[in-house]
C-alpha cells in the first residue's frame, strides 16, 4: 500500500479563548476618563511622581497613590518602532508605529501608537518621526473605555 503518492490531510481548527479581565477601581476610573476624552494620572504622595496610566500605588515607594489629576494630552516621543510584518492575532493591522510617549507633566512613559502620517514607506517614516518630537492625542469618535479610545498620537506641527 503506497502512502507516498497521496495528498495528505490537513486538519484545520480554531481555538478561541475568551478572556474577562476585572479592571478594578483604578483602571475603571482611568478608562472612564478616556470615555470623556480625559487622560488621568495618579501622583505618589512620597516621591511626587505623576504616573500614567493611573496606578493604585507607587511602584518605587510602595505607597498608595490616591491623588488623581488630569494630565496633558500632548507629549514627546521617547522612542518608536515601525512594524510592517503582519502576524496572526495582533489587534492592529500593520503598518503601525508603537511608541513610548512622555506626556507633559508626567514622570512615566505611555505606550501607544503614533499615526496620522503615511506609513507605507519606512524611509519616509524614518525621516519624519524623531525621538523628542511633540505629539498630541487623537481620539476615536466611538469610545469603549479601552486604551484604543485614543486612535493614536499625531505629530504636532
Amino acid at each position, binding site marked *: *500500500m503506497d*502512502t*507516498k503518492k*497521496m*495528498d*495528505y*490531510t*490537513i*486538519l*484545520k*481548527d*480554531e*481555538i*478561541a*479563548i*475568551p*478572556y*474577562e*479581565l*476585572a*479592571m*478594578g*477601581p483604578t*483602571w*475603571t476610573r482611568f*478608562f*472612564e476618563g478616556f470615555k470623556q476624552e480625559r487622560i488621568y494620572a495618579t501622583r505618589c504622595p512620597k516621591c511626587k511622581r505623576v504616573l500614567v496610566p493611573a496606578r493604585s500605588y507607587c511602584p518605587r515607594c510602595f505607597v498608595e497613590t490616591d491623588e488623581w489629576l488630569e494630565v496633558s494630552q500632548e507629549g514627546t516621543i521617547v522612542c518608536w518602532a515601525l512594524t510592517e510584518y503582519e502576524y*496572526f*492575532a495582533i489587534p492592529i493591522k500593520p503598518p503601525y508605529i508603537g511608541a513610548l510617549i512622555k506626556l507633559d507633566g508626567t514622570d512615566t512613559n505611555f505606550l501607544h501608537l503614533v499615526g496620522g502620517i503615511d506609513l507605507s514607506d519606512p524611509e519616509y517614516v524614518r525621516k519624519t518621526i524623531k525621538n523628542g518630537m511633540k505629539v498630541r492625542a487623537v481620539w476615536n469618535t466611538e469610545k469603549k*473605555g*479601552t486604551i484604543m479610545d485614543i486612535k493614536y498620537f499625531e505629530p504636532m506641527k
Partner: protein
Amino acid sequence: MSKDYNTLRHVVRLPHSYAAGPVWTRFYEGLKEEKIYGTRCDKCSRIYVPARSFCPNCHENLDEWVEVSQEGEVVSWAYSSDREFFGMQVKPPFIIALIRLDNTDSNLLHFVGGVDFDKNTIKAGQRVRAVWNDEKKGHMMDIKYFEPIG
C-alpha cells in the same frame, strides 16, 4: 460591599492547521469507507490502532496495514455529566472511553454512546461496536460513538 467596576473582554483566536501526514491520512481515508485500519509490526506482531508509522516497542517501521474489527471492549471510561467548558467539541453528557478493539494491542480513545446516561450501566469489559455517522469528513468523529452490544 460590592462596587461596579468595568470588565475588559477579549477573545484570543488561534486558528491552526495540522499536517496529518501519510499514516493518519490513510487511517482517515479508511474511516470514510467505514473501515478501521491498524498497522502491524513484523517483528512483534502487535497491531496498533489508530495506525502508527513505527512500532513503539521495536522501533521498526510499520508498513503492513490491516483492517481491524469494529467491535471490542471498554478498558476504562469517564462520564462527564454536565460541566461544559468553552471550546468543547462534544458537549456533555458524554462517556469518553479507552476501547480495545478485538485482536489489537493498543487502546482507541473514543466515546461510548447510545446509552441512557441516567442509568449508570457502563462497566469496564463491556462489549461495544462502532456506530458510524452518515456524513463522513475523514476524521475520527466519522465514528459517531461505540455502542454497547450483547
